[in-house]
């Protein structure tokens, strides 16, 4: 027998015990809809004759998550992690640019929160 269970990659869990399936419908949050829309835009946009992102790349980055992150991140958290990793890989922006933008957005959110809290 050549099967070596120790070499199975974590995400490749077809056929393993998984417990009950939750069938409850729920409305996606606004940010989740935005991530979905961003994925569609990037998957249909072409630069230098290539799509900006492929679903195969998205899957590859998600599959490379360590098991604890794979288990605890939500569906769209995995997507947004994957999208941001790929766009940095492809040089659409640098890590520094992404971090600067995130800091700017956080500062704006804090400002809005403190304005909202004022009497």
């Amino acid at each position: 027998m050549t099967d070596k269970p120790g070499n199975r990659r974590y995400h490749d869990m077809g056929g393993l015990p998984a417990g009950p399936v939750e069938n409850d419908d729920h409305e996606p949050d606004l940010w989740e809809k935005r991530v979905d829309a961003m994925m569609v835009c990037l998957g249909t946009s072409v630069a230098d004759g290539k799509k900006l992102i492929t679903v195969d790349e998205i899957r590859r980055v998600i599959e490379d998550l360590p098991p604890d992150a794979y288990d605890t991140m939500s569906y769209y958290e995995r997507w947004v992690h994957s999208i941001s990793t790929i766009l940095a890989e492809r040089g659409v922006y640098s890590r520094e640019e992404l971090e600067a933008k995130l800091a700017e957005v956080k500062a704006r959110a804090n400002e809005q929160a403190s304005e909202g809290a004022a009497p």
Partner: protein
Amino acid sequence: MSRFAPGDKVRVIADFTRPGHVRTPWYCRDKAGVIERACGAFANPETLAYAKDGLPKLPLYRVRFAQRELWPDYGGGAGDVVEIEIYEPWLKATEE
């Protein structure tokens, strides 16, 4: 050009250590099945996953496996099957 035709007996190659993005589920590797249909040729997802062009396109087949082949302790009907779409490089001909 497709190497296999419907009805051909095949076995998934026993590659349990291929790194990176792989489109062939772990549980069907080294398992025997039958070609159910040829699906056409498609860009290779295992290279598209690394921002390559995925060329040359690879023949894709729908392969039918008996549940009892995949899961030795399967408790359902003897005629139960699973069909999995698998790219040609993952398949080899077999007489079994």
